[in-house]
């Protein structure tokens, strides 16, 4: 029963969503809306579950004084302050939550992302080599796009922006479309396997 019930639920829900896409009329349309609302409720609970798990894992780390437990303490303190301020005083701009968001979260987030520029520069110097013809083509295309996507390119040669647009709109687009079609076919195949109960790894238990 522990396996059959989830398999039946998956089959019914999966088939209903497929049918309702092609036949949006009643009863399929109504059932699809109902399932969508259930999904949104479940996702909201999953968020709460995620937050509780975060607290549990980090509290355990602090209790056992594992390496880096100080970071977990900072995380739990800031988490508590942010949640309490948001729950009791709202999330408007002038509130404590708004202050934390604008003056702590935003600059910290932007700083973390901007560090990428340094690592990308270092990595491209070390690893971006024209070892093969394919790598050389990639390198030339990358340099042309990098020049074409900044105003500097048009000062060197007026056609650089057009060339960059052409690379993006044709060779890049063709490659992206091939990847997209491949992913779509893979998604259809794995979805069918799950709906028909052939793929059962999501149930756990190592089967």
């Amino acid at each position: 029963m522990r396996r059959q019930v989830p398999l039946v639920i998956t089959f019914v829900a999966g088939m209903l969503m497929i049918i309702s896409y092609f036949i949006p009329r009643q009863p399929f349309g109504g059932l699809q809306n109902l399932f969508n609302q259930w999904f949104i409720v479940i996702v909201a609970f999953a968020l709460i579950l995620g937050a509780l798990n975060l607290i549990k894992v980090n509290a355990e780390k602090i209790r056992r004084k594992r390496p880096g437990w100080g970071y977990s303490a900072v995380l739990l303190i800031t988490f508590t302050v942010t949640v309490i301020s948001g729950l009791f005083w709202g999330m408007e701009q002038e509130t404590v939550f708004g202050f934390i968001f604008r003056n702590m979260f935003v600059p910290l987030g932007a700083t973390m992302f901007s560090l990428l520029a340094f690592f990308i520069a270092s990595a491209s110097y070390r690893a971006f080599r024209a070892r093969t013809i394919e790598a050389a083509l990639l390198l030339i295309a990358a340099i042309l796009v990098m020049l074409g996507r900044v105003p500097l390119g048009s000062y060197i040669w007026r056609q650089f922006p057009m060339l960059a647009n052409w690379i993006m709109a044709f060779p890049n687009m063709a490659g992206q479309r091939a990847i997209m079609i491949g992913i779509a076919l893979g998604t259809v195949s794995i979805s069918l396997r799950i709906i028909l109960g052939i793929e059962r790894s999501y149930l756990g238990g190592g089967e």
Partner: protein
Amino acid sequence: MNLFDRLKNIDRRTIFVLIALSVLIPLFVPIKLRIHVSPPAQGLYDAIDRLPPGSNVLMAFDYGPSTMPEVYPMTLAILRHVFSKDLKVIAMALWPEGASIAQDAFKTVAEDEFHKLYGVDYINLGFKAGGLVVIQAMGTSIPAIFPTDQAGRPVEEFPIMKKVKNFDEIEMIVDLSAGDPGIRHWVMIAQARYQKKVGGGCTAVSAPAFYPYLQTGQLVGLLGGLMGAAEYEALVKHPGSAIKAMPSQALSHAVIIILILIGNITFFVERRRSRKQG
């Protein structure tokens, strides 16, 4: 150690300093650069420009603070265009941080610059978890998915939401995205299923993935990264932080290209030497 060896083994700290300087120097020494507007940016501008006054534009804030330096300037530029055309904005977020970002953007553009009224000219519906399914459910009923605004007030209290039932009352969707859920999902559901006009803005790194949608017309326009934001600022004739940051981006691109060239020259010279010896 000769010059060749030095160029072959540039210390990563030297590279970090070069990148930092290439970003910082243009910020202190302003340089005016010409902005070339790309067809995808022009497409988004034209699509918004053609909307009749009073039309509802749904703006999805699907990004977080980490990508704000790239996506926020385009958010402000698009909002300036939208409000200058007297369009109405319904904002929502599929990313939790998006709702607060929308609040800040509205404060800057809608309140301070255009003196628009909340609930009449624009509204912030807040965040809803569920990604693609939220979009799908909005196709049936927006008030059912967002019964209250960001502050928890019932949406039926606001004039802007009085006639809005589902996507039928939305003229265009603009998704500002930094990943999933984002532009791909809006195209998949709002465009492919409900035939809505969808345009967007995203980080430079994710822009190439959306070019197939531009070619098919499923995306009316796209702003890619800081350059996309600068293009839109140029189009709305309101230079902002993206145009100001362009010299920094141009110089840092130049530094990276020079580093790549140095890396390749030393690689080929060394390969030639080892072939001669071997």
